[in-house]
């Protein structure tokens, strides 16, 4: 029996789900508060966010918060489309979903490195 490589996708899916479960509500709250803080004190807010993104651990945190939920979501979409009997070549769907997640993850990492 040939080993499936699904564990890679499933691990990322699981990690994304776990991350969202633990800090998802915090992320939503922080994102909701940001515009308000920015309007209130633009200079301090900009400095604070800048400091977070300047620190390697901050970059890693933001990267994890973007990449893992991305894989989580696209993995679920990939399988849900299969469950909904979408007629599309399997390889193409894999390329779109997992390729898309990989590409967007790369772009995020690149952007974080540039800051």
């Amino acid at each position, binding site marked *: *029996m*040939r080993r*499936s*490589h*699904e*564990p890679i996708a499933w*691990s990322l899916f699981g990690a994304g789900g776990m991350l969202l479960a633990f800090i998802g509500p915090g992320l939503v709250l922080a994102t909701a508060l940001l515009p308000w803080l920015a309007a209130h004190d633009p200079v301090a807010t900009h400095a604070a966010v800048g400091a977070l993104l300047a620190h390697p651990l901050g970059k890693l945190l933001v990267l994890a918060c973007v990449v893992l939920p991305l894989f989580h979501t696209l993995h679920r979409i990939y399988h*849900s489309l299969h*469950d909904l009997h979408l007629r599309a070549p399997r390889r193409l769907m894999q390329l779109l979903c997992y390729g898309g997640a990989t590409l967007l993850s790369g772009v995020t990492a690149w952007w974080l490195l540039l800051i």
Partner: protein
Amino acid sequence: MTETVTVRVQRYRPEEDQEPWAQSFEVPYSEDLSILDALNQIKDQQDPTLSHRWSCRMAICGSCGVMINGEPRLACKTFLRDYRGKDALEVRALDNFPIERDLVSDISGFIDHLETVQPWLIRSDEQPVSAGAYRQTPEQMQRYAAFSQCINCGLCYAACPQFGRDPAFLGPAALTLAQRYNLDSRDEGASQRMNWLNAEAGVWSCTFVGYCSQVCPKDVDPAAAINQGKVASDINYAVNLFNILRGKDDA
């Protein structure tokens, strides 16, 4: 006048029917009449050519699985009273299996899958009979007890959309059985069974629809067993990758 219930029963006699069709029968209503009782009454008193499977009449043998109003159920554990006031009561053969005759399905594919996972205690060295039974604590038994309640009725296969689309998928009950033995402290065969679990047709065809656990008449929760199997397969994948990196062969 006694109240009667109309039961629409699927008929299919391969020698004369092109395709399955539904035949209506009137059955006298009673509170404690199961669908299986109703089918037996039809066969005994109205049409002796009706074919359906049954044996224990008490949700133990697992042979009376049918679709009742589109839901996979044991005919002996489902009652006419549950459908009182409903527009129709329709009984047909289990979904996702070829029909042999009337309500009788050909479940050989399912049985083959059960055998595939080697559902017995595998030991690297068998202890002689004189040494007595392999012992186990109640806590060790508890780990797999729920998964060992399966009666091989096949309802979870009729419920599973993945098995419906690809009969090669080992499916809920077989994967549960594999997990049941892998969790058994007396068993040493997990590495053999993992080869099947790790495959696409193993745990990885499951998309966690979960309908299998809803229809299971014995609360086995096959969806949970498959998810445990996914975790085990995931770890197995990582260990294998590590071994390859260390120059060992792919397992």
